[in-house]
């Protein structure tokens, strides 16, 4: 029985019924990764350690944890002890961390087996995975098309059925947008729900780790393990973590869903609109009520984000200076020359662009006009959300205004074109709110994603709503034809 395209719940069943051993499962996963290496999902494989860990899992009659023996892929932005962690950047191309990120550690402690590190936009800066030092990732649905980004490798690996689930990080849509483009489910939790310890920072106040999987159910399983307060991350939330899986089958009669007026969905591609209208109908059948809501400041999300995120990134990436770790230029004249050359050689164009934007936004004389102003607008956007969540439970938008596009077709002349890809996803990062993307059909043979945004710490509501949708549709079961990649 093939393990490809199986969910965690399905694989758990196979393991528990001893149809397959953990060892066999890992081996088959590694073989699938190898078979589809043309997708370029992985930067580094963890064959040896994964094989060893899996062989140590002895089948028993006791009920094991959901993740015991489960193969997972980790975005190459999570530090993994002894396993190369590159952030898909030349500057970290040879970096082997001496410690493991809390999120990964928790999954591994629950029995999950890390089979490899997935490709991504360099330092998570990008929406197409095209900024990776290790090359483009193909969308499993169409060769030569982007998988979305920045967690493109994780999304493609799950969509191709290589692994049942993978970790990702989301700063402005980096879990949800690739999940949408690859036809899978991706959840960005509430800011602080998952520890950021060991996650290589892009924009500290926006970064959040979360799961990418085939189903909302599987996302709940991963989130159960990943969540929780971590004393090593003072911004992680010291709040109770509910059992997300146990709460996943509640009726949604009377749940109020808001449609955001300012997003002008009527101007979108008519096929994208059509999918969205259908999804509204699906939820109406399940008993949800729809209302139009207004978030007056939400249209300022993109410029606000592109002031704050680069500012934080310009500071966060200062530690990559060639002194203690990472790429160091040769034949340098003095300390300053060492910095200039190491960083010029080590960073790609998009990373440099954002460091420059951020440095500018924080400079004396510009700080008030850019960074400080952006933080004030951010507060207004958050207030807008607080206000609408007094009258609705969930907000619903398409995840992305478009489906996946061809390599090199967007943002090469004008980066802003690509920044606008994040229009619908960015605001929940600015407000720190949880949001999930689920597949809801196809547009021109490419997957389209539906986004649900929830109130603070209401991942359970989102997972529940997403799960009910998936129980009443089969979009999430669609499988790409991978002939072109093997």
């Amino acid at each position, binding site marked *: 029985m093939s393990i490809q395209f199986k969910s965690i719940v399905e694989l758990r069943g196979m393991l528990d019924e001893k149809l397959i051993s953990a060892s066999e499962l890992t081996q088959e996963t590694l073989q699938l990764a190898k078979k589809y290496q043309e997708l370029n999902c992985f930067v580094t494989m963890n064959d040896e350690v994964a094989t060893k860990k899996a062989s140590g899992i002895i089948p028993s009659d006791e009920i094991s944890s959901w993740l015991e023996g489960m193969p997972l892929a980790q975005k190459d932005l999570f530090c993994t002890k002894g396993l190369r962690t590159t952030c898909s950047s030349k500057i970290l191309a040879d970096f082997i961390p001496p410690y493991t990120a809390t999120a990964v550690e928790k999954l591994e402690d629950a029995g999950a087996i890390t089979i490899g590190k997935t490709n991504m936009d360099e330092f998570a800066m990008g929406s197409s995975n095209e900024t990776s030092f290790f090359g483009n990732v193909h969308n499993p649905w169409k060769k030569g098309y982007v998988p979305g980004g920045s967690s493109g490798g994780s999304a493609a690996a799950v969509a191709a059925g290589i692994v049942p689930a993978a970790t990702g990080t989301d700063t402005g849509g980096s879990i949800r947008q690739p999940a949408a483009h690859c036809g899978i489910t991706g959840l960005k939790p509430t800011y602080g729900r998952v520890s950021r310890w060991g996650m290589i920072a892009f924009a500290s106040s926006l970064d959040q780790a979360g799961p990418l999987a085939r189903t909302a159910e599987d996302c709940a399983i991963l989130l159960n393990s990943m969540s929780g307060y971590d004393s090593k991350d003072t911004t992680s939330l010291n709040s109770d973590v509910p059992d997300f899986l146990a709460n996943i089958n509640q009726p949604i009669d009377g749940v109020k869903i808001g449609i955001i007026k300012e997003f002008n969905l009527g101007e979108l591609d008519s096929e994208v609109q059509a999918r969205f209208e259908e999804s509204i109908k699906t939820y109406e059948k399940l008993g949800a009520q729809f209302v139009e809501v207004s978030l007056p400041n939400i249209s300022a999300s993109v410029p606000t984000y592109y002031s704050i995120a680069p500012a934080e990134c310009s500071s966060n990436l200062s*530690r990559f200076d060639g002194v203690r770790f990472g790429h160091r230029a040769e034949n340098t004249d003095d300390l300053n020359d060492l910095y200039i050359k190491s960083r010029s050689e080590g960073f790609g164009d998009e990373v440099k662009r954002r460091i420059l934007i951020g*440095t500018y936004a924080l400079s004396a004389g510009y700080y008030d006009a850019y960074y400080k102003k952006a933080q004030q607008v951010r507060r207004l956007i958050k207030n807008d959300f607080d206000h609408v969540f007094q009258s609705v439970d969930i907000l619903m938008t398409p995840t992305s205004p478009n489906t996946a596009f061809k390599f090199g077709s967007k943002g090469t002349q004008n980066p802003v074109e690509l920044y606008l890809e994040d229009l619908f996803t960015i605001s929940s990062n600015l407000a720190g709110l949880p949001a999930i993307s689920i597949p809801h059909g196809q547009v021109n043979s490419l997957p389209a994603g539906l986004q649900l945004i929830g109130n603070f710490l209401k991942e359970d509501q989102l997972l529940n709503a997403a799960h009910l949708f998936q129980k009443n549709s089969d979009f999430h079961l669609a499988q790409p034809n991978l002939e072109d990649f093997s």
Partner: protein
Amino acid sequence: MNWETVIGLETHVQLSTKTKLFSRASTTFGANPNTNVNLVDCGLPGVLPSINKEAFYKAIRLGMAINAQINQTSIFDRKNYFYADLPKGYQITQMDLPIVLGGSIEIFLDGTTKKINITRAHLEEDAGKSIHDEYDGFSAIDLNRAGTPLLEIVSEPELSSAKEAVAYMKAMHQLVTYLDVSDGNMAQGSLRCDANVSIKKNGDKELGTRTEIKNINSFKFIEKAINFEIKRQIKVLESGEKVTQETRLYDSVKDETRPMRSKEFANDYRYFPEPDLLPVIISDEEMSKIKDEFPELPNEKEARYQKQFKLSAYDAQIIASSKSMADFFESAANQTKNYTLLSNWLIGEVSAYLNKELIEISESKLNVDNLAMLINRIDDQTISGKIGKTIFEEMCINGTSPDEIIESKGLKQISDDGAIEQIIDTVIKDNSAQVKAYLEGKDKLFGFFVGQVMKLTQGKANPTSVNTILKEKLKK
């Protein structure tokens, strides 16, 4: 022309916490390079700072002692600049909402008291250390100090001479050691300052252009550096030129200040709130706990010493002025009853010795047990005060106990009247001419006889007994 000097000091106090400000690595001084360093201190990708509340408590204690406003909610900011011993490429510090705001400190100079206002005091992390001269062709970096908590205390520009600046630093030293906020060790850099110095014409309202002398770490250098800078600025102004606003370094070997290379300070630090740390909130409970556990301050100690140990006001003040001296006194006072003798010794012999060696009492070989024992032996007349001084010298060199020294050198005082009488008889017999002269009225010769007795007993005869018996014998 007459010039007025205006000085403001930025004092860096290294807080005596066990671990660093944002990591749980040790802050012990003098460890092997890069051993007090963990993932956070070396700024590895993915690491995050976490708060050491102990540093806050110490900062608050200082704030309370100077009657400052304590911001129970304070935030951290990033100060961005590249340097090889600054692992993250930014320093975490406090800009807009420092923990301590305002307050004042009293300084004492030439018998008068002056109040100096404090602008603010904020917490920040120290950088590591670059070593440029130990490895041929390489620079080395030691990150042991990186992340050590510092409290930067900024004074208003209210000091008007180098001597006042020194008095301010001495008051600061007393305060931070008393409050157990810092060990105050200037040689190890636990207490150092930057001095902002400017001069103006007498009576001018507007301040002159200032220069900042960086990183001065001894009282002596503070005085010398500021005095040099005042003279230099006067010379510049009197020759019709202008003082350049710049950062300067004091060279103690050449006794001069020199401008730092412009590259070393021409930075736009791009401050912004540290997104990896939430605002730090100190609860009312924590505030009252800090108040309840407030240590006794010098003036309170002074009063108590006069009452409890019956010390003179002068002695009490001197002993209480130094935390380490006061601690030593109180421990020794548990082991002896003669508090006056103890304080005399601490103020006299012990202080003289420490001043000569330029060390703190804790750095010397003196210990509480030995000094108390010495006081007791003098008090119970086992030895004379004079012999005590000989023993003290040896205690300081070897740390040996007084009893051992008395035993091994046979220094025990002869207090047996019979034995002393015998010796005096010998002296009288051997010096009949002097006895005659004395009896004829040459009173000054009495000292000669005492000296002879001491000579024969190697100084061990009880001086009081010698005096009494000698007077008796010479009457006859």
